[in-house]
């Protein structure tokens, strides 16, 4: 757009981890940009920036989305949840506990995305097979663990009745 034109700003009103957020943003800002740069929620990581790796996974109305390639305005009127919103009053969720118990992370870069994708699955389905977990996490890439401990952790959290 030529610089002579006014830069369009749009209103974004949504909740992030249960808190009301109201911002004036540019339409081109991604949800990851807004979370990390404007709200300081840096638990959401950006890696491939192409919806392939899953590191930037957050929940939009309970469903996993890639915040790296979603315009933040798409969150208008909706509920965004990030890894920062999982623990309540310092208590980890059973899923987070299971990740620690099963050593389901090493470098940790994929972990917030894994946790959010698995949280969406656990909230929808109580009885999970290994295949269900693998299918739900197919789009989340981990270069450290070899995945087995991650799948084990999600199954353990399902058992624990998250």
């Amino acid at each position, binding site marked *: *757009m030529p610089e002579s034109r006014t*830069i*369009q700003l*749009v209103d974004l009103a949504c909740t992030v981890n249960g808190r009301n957020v109201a911002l004036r943003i*540019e*339409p*081109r800002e*991604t949800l990851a940009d807004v979370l990390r740069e404007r709200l300081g929620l840096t638990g959401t990581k950006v890696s491939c*920036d*192409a*919806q*392939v790796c*899953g590191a930037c*996974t957050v929940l*939009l109305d309970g*469903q*996993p*989305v*890639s915040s790296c*390639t*979603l*315009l933040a*305005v*798409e969150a208008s009127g909706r509920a965004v949840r990030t890894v920062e919103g999982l623990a309540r009053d310092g208590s980890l969720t059973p899923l987070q506990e299971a990740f620690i118990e099963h050593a389901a992370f090493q470098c940790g870069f994929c972990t917030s995305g894994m946790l959010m*994708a698995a949280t*969406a699955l656990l909230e929808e389905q109580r009885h999970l097979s290994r295949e269900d977990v693998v*299918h*739900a996490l*197919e*789009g*989340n890439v981990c270069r450290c663990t070899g995945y087995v401990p991650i799948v084990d952790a999600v199954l353990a959290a399902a058992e624990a009745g998250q």
Partner: protein
Amino acid sequence: MTIPRFELHVPTSVAEASELLRRYPGEAVPYAGGTELLQTMKLGLASFEHLVDVKRIPALAGIAVQPGGWLRIGATTTHREIERSALVGERLPALRLLERQVANVRVRNTGTLGGNLCFAEPHSDPAAFLLAAGARVRLGSAEGERELDVDAFIAGPLFTDRAPDELLLDVRVPPARPGRGHGFAKLAFFERPAASVACRIDVAEGAIADARVAVASACESPVLLERVGQTLVGARGADLDDALGAAVEAARHDVETFDDVNGSADYKRHLVGLLLRAAATSAYEEATRA
């Protein structure tokens, strides 16, 4: 990567969206899930100064059975909505299975069927299915509407018959009925498949009366292999295996594959044959299920 600056428009009718697209020739583009569009803009492969969000237009939404049994899927329906639709599950289980395997859950939650078709990605599994199913698309603009076969709509790699001021309104799939079955099979090593094959088979009086075969990913653009389907016509129970063998040979001959990171052109021809056998077998099983 930062997305270059653009202006976002949120029309609520087809006419309004079409006017916007016409107002900014060459600078405006319809925007739905953004799965492909935002990626190409980030990479600088495409640049648009106006994005016309089509997700608030009621005429582009929803899944419904129409009079005559055609299944209408609105252009802004996400892959996840199709995957989870009870109507699709009942009538087109092969499409449900296909949609369940599109990319990953995040792409399925935002990416739309209409966006997928309009981008004309060579790796489009839905396009392969819709070609085999004999689906039709409806396009609309401020001028009116027109309808055409998916085959005519997909004009080539990353290229469709859609005019710049037209919107894809919906896709309509011919009725599911007794004696008709759909099948789909793919092999993917990465996000985008190496090869995908879709098949529709109609059985009458114990023999295959009609068969349609479409291939995606292995070739430049999703394609209907008309001669291949015809090799299956007339086959019945005992000689199905021979007919499948002939169809596999015909498909390997007719499909124009290419070398890339997924493998050589020869390898992909081989895959097309294997996947055709799997897709046609499940279509036949569905068609002959009591």
